């Protein structure tokens, strides 16, 4: 079923994907995601020059040529940014398009000079052609990947520092420029070995996508690198298989689409950082906040008649807060399900013992905040989003003590028998 050729191709592209994932993650974190794109486009004249100089197709020579003009491209970007008033984004665009134009000029020259047979070889570098991969290509990819892995392992700490906070690294006396250069060197190597498989135009995507996808799954650099390399591996494997089976599907675009599918899936469905998970978490915390407000209001309204639990009119609750009656209906339904309130009739409800306890605790925290802000209005900015947290978690102990004293003295401390069971707040 699986032939030797297929095996070679699969091995090559999946290794390439994994390496792209590894190196691309650093570029991504360093906010240099698009420099891979510029670099890749800038390799085209190098490929052609090597071909023109040698007069025949030699993979190693062409890759060396590609590496040289690719690095020339990023050095040009750095010089332009340093010397002129042109901003980085425009520098990237200028180098990308002008070098690519240069490459196209050379390709046309080669087409004029040679027979169509060898010209086809150059065209395949533009959109990539995995099918032609041979053992020698895989050796090159494997060697470079191994080298990148070694460098990353040796310089892991330094790369981490530069990737997350380059100016801090510089301030600490690390050779940030050299490390940046080393990183860009790895990116250049990776781009160059990816050219035969994915092509000049789209190799950058392979550098960006695995890292961007992995970022949704983890918060730690170590695991991000692992996930990213794994994603790249899968992209290579799946993309190549599809491209081999479907006619007229150039490898580069197919790999990119597989990558963007994985990226999209990650963006939507990753636990915790994914969009769906974040929407759910947002909704949950909004619900919690609403419940809290509701019980707090209920406690405020029932407080005067305590310990007797007198029913409260829904209309009074509505007066108190800006809920619509539909929102309030939903709140009451939920609270009833939790056993916090009883409906007396259609118009009235009252909190259960359990609901009152919760309400008392929330009201206490709210009143402590109010007292605190009364006393220290200058501090408002320092403690944002106050009412949903327990003040004792945020305020320093001595401040807390004085705020407690003030609230006790004002006589607005919620009824003690509702509180003592839950928290030691009333102490």
């Amino acid at each position, binding site marked *: 079923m699986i032939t030797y050729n297929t095996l070679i191709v699969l091995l090559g592209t999946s290794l390439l994907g994994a390496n792209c994932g590894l190196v691309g993650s650093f570029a*991504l974190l360093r*906010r*240099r*995601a*698009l420099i*891979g*794109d510029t670099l890749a*486009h800038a390799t085209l004249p190098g490929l052609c020059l090597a071909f023109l100089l040698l007069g025949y197709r030699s993979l190693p020579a062409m890759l060396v040529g590609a590496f040289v003009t690719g690095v020339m491209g990023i050095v040009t970007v750095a010089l*332009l940014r340093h*010397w*002129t*008033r*042109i*901003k980085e*984004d*425009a520098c*990237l*665009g*200028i180098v*990308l*398009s*002008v*070098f*690519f*134009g*240069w*490459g*196209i*000029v*050379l*390709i*046309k*020259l080669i087409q*004029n000079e040679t027979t169509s047979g060898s010209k086809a070889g150059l*065209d395949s570098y*533009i*959109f990539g052609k995995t099918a032609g991969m041979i053992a020698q290509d895989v050796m090159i990819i494997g060697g470079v990947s191994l080298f990148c892995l070694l460098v990353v392992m040796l310089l892991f700490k330094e790369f981490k520092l530069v990737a997350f906070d380059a100016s801090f690294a510089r301030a600490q006396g690390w050779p940030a420029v050299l490390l940046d250069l080393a990183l860009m060197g790895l990116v250049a190597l990776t781009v160059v070995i990816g050219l035969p498989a994915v092509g000049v*135009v*789209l190799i*950058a*995507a392979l550098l*960006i*996508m695995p*890292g*961007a996808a992995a*970022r*949704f799954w983890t918060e730690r650099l170590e695991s991000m690198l692992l996930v990213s390399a794994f994603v790249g591996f899968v992209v290579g494997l799946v993309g190549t298989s599809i491209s081999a089976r479907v006619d*007229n*599907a*150039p490898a*580069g*675009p*197919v790999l*990119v*689409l597989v990558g*963007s599918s994985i*990226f999209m899936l990650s*963006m939507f469905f990753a636990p915790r*950082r994914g*969009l769906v998970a974040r929407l759910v978490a947002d909704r949950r915390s909004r619900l919690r906040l609403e419940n809290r407000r509701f019980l707090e209001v209920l406690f405020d309204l029932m407080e005067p008649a305590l310990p007797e639990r007198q029913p409260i009119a829904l209309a009074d609750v509505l007066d108190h807060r800006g809920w619509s009656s539909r929102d309030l209906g939903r709140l009451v339904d939920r609270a009833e399900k939790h056993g916090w309130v009883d409906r007396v009739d259609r118009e009235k409800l009252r909190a259960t013992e359990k609901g009152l306890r919760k309400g008392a605790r929330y009201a206490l925290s709210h009143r402590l905040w109010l007292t605190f802000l009364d006393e220290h209005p200058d501090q408002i900015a320092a403690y944002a989003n106050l009412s949903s947290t327990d003040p004792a978690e945020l305020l320093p102990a001595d401040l807390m003590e004085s705020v407690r004293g003030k609230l006790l003295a004002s006589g607005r401390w919620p009824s003690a028998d509702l509180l003592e069971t839950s928290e030691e707040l009333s102490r």
Partner: protein
Amino acid sequence: MSLTTSDFLAAWWTIAVGTLSNASCAILGCYLLLRRMSLLGDAISHAILPGIAIAFLLTGKIASFPIFLGAMGIGVLTAFLTQLIHRGGVTEDASLGVVFTSLFAIGVIMVSAIHSVDLDPGCVLYGLIDAVPLTTQPFLGFEVPPAVGTMGSVLIVVLLFVNIFWKELKLVSFDPDLATSMGISATLVHYLLMAMVAGVTVTSFEAVGAILVVAMLIVPAATAHLLTDRLWSMMLVAVGVGFLSSLFGYIGALLLDTSVAGMMSVVAGLLFLLAVFFSPRYGVVSKVWHNLALTLRISGEDIIATIYRAEERAGGKTSGAGIGLGESLRAAGGGIVGWLAVAGFWWQGLLDCRGSLLILTPDGRRRARSLVRSHRLWELFLEENVELPLDHLHDPAERVEHFIDRHLQEELNDVLESPRKDPHGRPIPPLDSMDEA
């Protein structure tokens, strides 16, 4: 090589189409550059490919009005998707990279599947500007390639757009917050601009292909940015650069027998490089020149100030005191700069030689006195206002003395109430001693 009339016409029309599309791109590119969104232009030019493929399947043509509208939609979509993914927690450049490579990949696959002579992956890259003169339509009695009409109308649309929204675009480009506070929706203007960029890109696409259109969007605008500071003149220069790159791109391609579109972007790159080096205000050469001139002035001034102090120690200007060349080179910080400074000041008539000594000419003495005056006034000012210790006064004054002009000198003199001695007890030379005359 003999040129026939048809060769000449072909050249004329090709250059015309190149110039027209370059002009539209260059004008919009100025806004992209100023708003630091050049790469969004790059992204949009890639992202419209699937739209072009679909439209080609439906209509069999690349440039038509429905496609122009469709491309505008895709341009807005690209900008919008990028923003959406960015909000989803990905850095802006990465989200841009994900969006446009994906859309471009879809486009390439569609184009490969279509299998048509007119729209193949090669055409996506190189464009078909060489084919422009091949088909013509009669227009007002002339045989005109349809591409000229298309590009001409696009340029008119662009000019109208820029003209109508001139104030809004300018405000949003330079100060989006101010624009918002004045009631101009920065978002709306942003998406309008992106729609225009996409529209222009899609029409230029036929001529130069997906990637080289980026050169037309960014390079002329960047070149102009190095040459001028006003928006309208920047646009004018950018259009000029676009024209030059079309013209010389075509000629170069003809001479080398290679791709016109590729050559156009190479020429644009060369023009940009010229501006990088030789722009009068922002060029590298003029920067280096100004730095060198400043260094030489400072070194020369250090030398004459040293001679002036030597005269002072020897008892005034009549003493005819001077310093040796070695000492003056040391005062200038040594090296070739010192030699150049000595030569330069001698050339300007500020220094003279007597035997092996360098002495001051009257002009040189006046200049040196003013410098020493600045130096000592500054020392006194530092001592009184910053309360630096006595031995910390010389170094800052040595640096600042070269930048204190007559006016500031007067102000210092007034603030310090016309002092006679500096903190070290040395006399502060008067502005212009009467005995000079």
